């Protein structure tokens, strides 16, 4: 499906969503509350069929966090980006690991690196950081590590 | 039939195993296929390609002159903070102040041999040397000063 077509279809599915222009792929902003239902529709709708979540990450914008989901369809070969804005002090979002199994690992990574709490995640534990890690989440902008200098 | 299939299976297995054994026997008997390089015995004949990135050096000519103007382009280009340019101001015969390097400090222990400093240098003052035996007993020896003592900038390099 082409960009314009996809936009119309997506706007039908979720009326509250806004689109972001300028990117390479169709980019849609979704509220955190709508995300779980919307994700299921993206995966299961035959004309959309976004079955391949190829990138899941988070960006810390100092005032808020933004979850970024890159989706692709192996059937229709179209791509889209979903952005979900989260509260920085209490970031919570529903997990999508039962829709795209790959999200399980990626969400665990985001959980420890950004402190985003994924609700109903089957196994939300530290994956990369050592057991017993306390304190801030390393990829947030205000993280400073006095032992291992990262900035030069 | 079961028996023929069984025999075929065994026969195929034996055949595939002997193919592999033939190959290894070939290498066992053909010693000229050996590819081992006996470093450090072959040190004299070992030639490294001229582009090999081993270490940053600053070439000097016979009258102890280099081409570095002290512009700090290499220092800015380096991703690891490997290079530190310490500049001083020389008084030229005309009485003007001119920037020149006092020391160009190079931390070999931090260097990843990416070659970005060489690319960045506008006056071709530094280049990569083809050395690779960098081990020393003291870490301090890895911090090097690239310009020779009392060296001067070459005429005509701006």
């Amino acid at each position, binding site marked *: 499906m082409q960009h314009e077509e996809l936009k119309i279809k997506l706007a039908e599915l979720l009326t509250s969503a806004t689109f972001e222009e300028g990117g390479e792929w169709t980019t849609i902003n979704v509220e955190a509350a709508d995300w779980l239902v919307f994700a299921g529709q993206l995966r299961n709708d035959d004309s959309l069929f976004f079955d391949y979540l190829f990138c899941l990450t988070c960006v810390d914008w100092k005032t808020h966090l933004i979850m970024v989901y890159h989706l692709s369809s192996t059937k229709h070969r179209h791509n889209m980006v979903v952005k979900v804005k989260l509260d920085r002090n209490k970031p919570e979002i529903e997990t999508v690991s039962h829709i795209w199994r790959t999200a399980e690992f990626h969400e665990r990574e985001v959980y420890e690196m950004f402190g985003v709490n994924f609700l109903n995640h089957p196994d939300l534990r530290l994956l990369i950081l050592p057991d017993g890690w306390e304190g801030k989440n390393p990829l947030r902008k205000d993280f400073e590590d006095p032992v291992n200098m990262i900035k030069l | 039939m079961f028996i023929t299939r069984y025999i075929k299976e065994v026969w195929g297995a034996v055949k595939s195993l002997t193919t*592999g054994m033939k190959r290894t026997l070939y290498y066992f008997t053909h010693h000229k296929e050996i590819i081992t390089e*006996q470093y450090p015995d072959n040190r004299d004949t070992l030639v490294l390609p001229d582009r090999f990135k081993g270490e940053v050096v600053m070439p000097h000519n016979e009258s102890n002159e280099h081409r570095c103007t002290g512009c700090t382009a290499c220092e800015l280009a380096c991703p690891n903070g490997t290079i530190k340019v310490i500049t001083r101001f020389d008084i030229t015969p005309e009485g003007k102040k001119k920037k020149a390097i006092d020391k160009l400090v190079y931390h070999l222990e931090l260097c990843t041999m990416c070659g970005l400093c060489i690319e960045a240098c506008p006056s071709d003052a530094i280049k990569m040397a083809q050395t690779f035996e960098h081990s020393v007993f003291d870490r301090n020896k890895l911090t090097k000063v690239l310009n020779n003592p009392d060296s001067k900038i070459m005429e005509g390099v701006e």
Partner: protein
Amino acid sequence: MWSFSYIANEIHEWLSKTFNPTWTLIIEMVLAGVAVIGLFAVLGLILVIMERKVSAWIQIRLGPNRVGPKGMMQSMADTVKLMVKEGLTPTGADKIMFNVAPVIAMIVAMLLLAPIAFAKNFQLWDLNIGVLYVSCVSSLMVISILMAGWSSNNKYSLLGAMRSGAQIVSYELSAGLSILTIIVFTGDLQMSKIIASQKTGWWIFKGHIPALIAFITFLIAVTAETNRAPFDLAEAESELTAGFHTEYSGMKFALFFLAEYVNVFIVCAIGATLFLGGWMPFHISTWTGFNHVMDYIPSSIWFFGKTFFLIFVIMWFRWTFPRLRIDQLLNLEWKYLLPISMINLLVATLMAMMGWHF
């Protein structure tokens, strides 16, 4: 003149003249013990360097080439290294069993040397059930591996030991059956008589196809019994780090290492005795001149030559094949080797009854 049997007889005569019979026997036993231990050490050194060179050439490498002439002293250096290493015993281990296991491995290997004929008339003990003795004692090897694996208090070791238990017990069967094929032909269990029966030709030639099949089965089975690749599941480096000897270090590890190589030597020696005529030279029936030349080569060289050829074949296996999985290993034994060797034994018995072999 300078054959092994000559030297042995000289020593025996001198001892008989000097001491009374009891002392003679005791001194002879001590001498034999020293000789066996010496043989172990020498075998260990030679086989390790041989393995390393064979693997190197197969893998287009040079192999050890620094210590001594052409690297031949490399295994000496390794021995020194292993001897000066600290032999750790893990805290949670069963100390007695842990330390006894490698010794048992060595004792089993030593016992196995008794009935082997190294040269003409040169044998420690020519007992009348030689072959039976060998197949009985060799199955004791599994005890040391099980002890080592269980007492280490390490899950990898335990897994390795359990694998090894299943493996050795099942492969004993087809090794035994293939030995039985030759016994059916000879009609005797005594080593010297088995060798004597091959005076006119080795069993691998005389016994037609059944002997050949038995020989191949024997090779596969003993490779498995000595835990060598492709059947090295007890060690399985890439799966169980080092299997049953994961926790061993220093001299205790060296004993296991040595026992493995001595076991390889012994099974190859038995294979050479049963199928390739032991110390018997290679004869072609009517070529008298050729047979004469062959007779001129000392019997010990014939024996060691054949044995080392078989050892090379087993090493060749090791450096060519990938490892089997545990269920495939047992499949191979119970579904392929065992039925084949049983049918083979049946055919061999028929042949022996009808006198169809040469």
